[in-house]
């Protein structure tokens, strides 16, 4: 699936929820099921420091696609990470670079990607794109 297709799928899924509680419960559950990052990458080298919650991200490239794994110490942050990983992982670097994150607004989670939220997610998206740029350079 393309990034846009996955984003549309997520928008549809969130459309089924009636209120914030269902949306958040879904995210919390997603957070719990997020495949954890390999412990060896949960170090200072891979950390993205938010003021409130920490985020770790690791990337590798197989068959010209970037695979991301990530983790956080806060579960709601982790739930959003799970969504971002679903959108961006296993995609071509070029597609990751060009993708936008407007879908987050459409699923009612805009506040979590505010730069003042200090949960590390804005920096995480920047980091995902940086990895993609680096891998794209390797492909060129």
């Amino acid at each position, binding site marked *: 699936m393309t990034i846009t297709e996955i984003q549309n799928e997520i928008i549809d899924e969130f459309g089924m929820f009636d209120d914030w509680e269902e949306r958040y419960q879904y995210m919390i559950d997603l957070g719990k099921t997020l495949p954890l990052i390999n412990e060896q990458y949960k170090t200072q080298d891979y950390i993205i420091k938010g003021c*409130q919650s920490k985020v770790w991200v690791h990337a590798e490239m197989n068959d010209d696609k970037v695979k991301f794994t990530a983790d956080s110490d806060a579960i709601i942050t982790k739930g959003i990470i799970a969504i971002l990983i679903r959108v961006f992982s296993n995609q071509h670097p070029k597609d990751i670079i060009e993708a936008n994150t407007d879908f987050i607004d459409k699923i009612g989670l805009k506040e979590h990607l505010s730069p003042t939220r200090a949960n590390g997610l804005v920096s995480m998206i920047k980091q995902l794109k940086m990895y993609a740029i680096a891998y794209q350079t390797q492909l060129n």
Partner: protein
Amino acid sequence: MNDTINHINFDVESIRKDFPILNREVNGKPLVYFDNAATSQTPRQVIDVIVDYYTNYNSNIHRGVHSLSQEATDLYEQARLKIQEHVNAKYNHEIIFTSGTTHGINLVATGFSSLLKPSDEVLVSALEHHSNIVPWQMLCERTGALLKVIPMNEEGELVIDTYENLLSEQTKLVFVNHISNALGTINPIETIIKKAHKVGAAVLIDGAQSCPHIKPNVQELDVDFYVTSAHKMCGPTGVGMLYGKEEWLRKLPPYQGGGEMIAEVTFEKTTYADLPHKFEAGTPNIAGGIAFGAAIDYMNKVGFDVIATYEHKLLEYATAQLLAIDGLKIYGTAKEKTAVISFNIEHIHPYDIGTILDKMGIAVRTGHHCAQPIMDFYKIPGTVRASFAFYNTKAEIDALVQGVKKAKMMLS
């Protein structure tokens, strides 16, 4: 609803009518505001003063010969007198208007740069806000003086025995907050000041958290510097005060150069204005200063004794209700504390609890509360902090307790 507490008839519903913001909704729910230790809300009486200033008096102070400037100057200087009276300073020129607590601390720390030498020592408490740590670290970097830390215990109290051992003739300055912003501990500042003075050290007390609850008496305390912010005590943001003993304020060099702080300027030499203007360069936050005075009037009208008694009841009630939640731990259990509860629930990140509470219209603070050393002490990433004010109610605490229970259920 009248809330009779210790024979004091305190009509909290009538008080709440003074605070327009308490009527608003957040995320479709009535606002429950428990982030008072960060910023208190502003009563109509203070908002009106700000509007009145810009409607009727707006002009620059201290220099104009015209009537508006005179009237604005009078109002501003009256506010200084109100602050002087509030903290019981000996002279009104010992009250310096600042932009807030952080500004006051930096003013003193910068002033001491020329008074310290490399063998000197300064003591700071383990309970400090970053704003009462970083300026002193910077001072020590500039002067070569040594920064030492007064440790805390598990309850969140300062270890006074160790403090005594740290004091020596090398100690030149001691910095302690009156009340810890992260834990609510009321520090024994009378003892701390007395002991510091015995070795000839000056003491700065950060009163940002105490002024909403306690009326400080700077003469009785014999404190050298006392700083606070208006926005913690029903006043506007961007204004605060530094109290300094006259002898110290004369000793310290000016902090910033500019208008207002000069007596005479030539390109060869400038002579500085007398106190308090020596430390008040530039056009100040005039409306803010006047409104600061109005905030003090407002709080005095409610009464600090009544406020302290009522808030203590809220604290006791909230503590008991929250502790009934399985897995909830309160950090900071000092015998003497104000209406601040810092807590965590086992295996749940404070950020997650704060996020769920926000969805329910409940405003709390989460994180390290600008006091990372305290979080390091407890080996936690942060806490959820609920801080109460006299306009909060038991019903709001019930809402918080329900919210925490719900958050726990969703997040477990």
